[in-house]
């Protein structure tokens, strides 16, 4: 039987609106909305680029 996963909204299933919870927590919702417009390939390649940058950047 398929599991019923994550059906309740809010942190830990509290029932609070998760978008409002995130906004109150300081999550940049604009970034999330912009990211949702990308394809999976674009998102994963962006992550690859960020990791690559983080690995190569150095203080001088």
């Amino acid at each position: 039987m398929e599991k019923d996963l994550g059906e309740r909204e809010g942190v830990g299933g509290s029932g609070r609106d998760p978008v409002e919870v995130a906004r109150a927590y300081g999550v940049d919702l604009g970034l999330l909305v912009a990211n949702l417009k990308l394809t999976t390939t674009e998102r994963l390649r962006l992550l690859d680029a960020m990791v690559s940058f983080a690995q190569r950047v150095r203080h001088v």
Partner: protein
Amino acid sequence: MFEKIIAALVAAGVRFVVVGGVAGVAHGSVRLTNDIDICYDAAADNVRALAALLAEWDAYLRGVDPGLPFAMDERALRTTPTMTLTTRMGNIDVLDSVAGVGSYAEVSAASEPCVVGDTQFRVLSLPALITAKRAAGRPKDLAHLIELEALAKLKTQT
């Protein structure tokens, strides 16, 4: 890095599901992660294929001093089915189950197809990823959980 790892796993015929932070990114998370977590099928043929690939990448236990007599092979994966590894392809965490979701069979059932470039693979669904984060219950997961739950709601609105 992650795209190459995923493509190589698929090319080697390894049965796996991407879970964790990279799965979150596939679903729209903006959180940076520098390791990829995969849940693999613990069947003998799959463990053999995964171990061979990890050995080819010089996999070694992450955070452990170099020089220990560690051999990345089928036996290592069978005796320690969950390992955090560093490889020359990047950091990889391999797991045979996911807290809150279950074994590979259950993880696979709770996964969905995904594509990067020309490579199709499976990624843990957003609801299952949320369940896993809740089950892990670590303080560090709270911020990620908040973001994932917001993403799930935003996806219903877009």
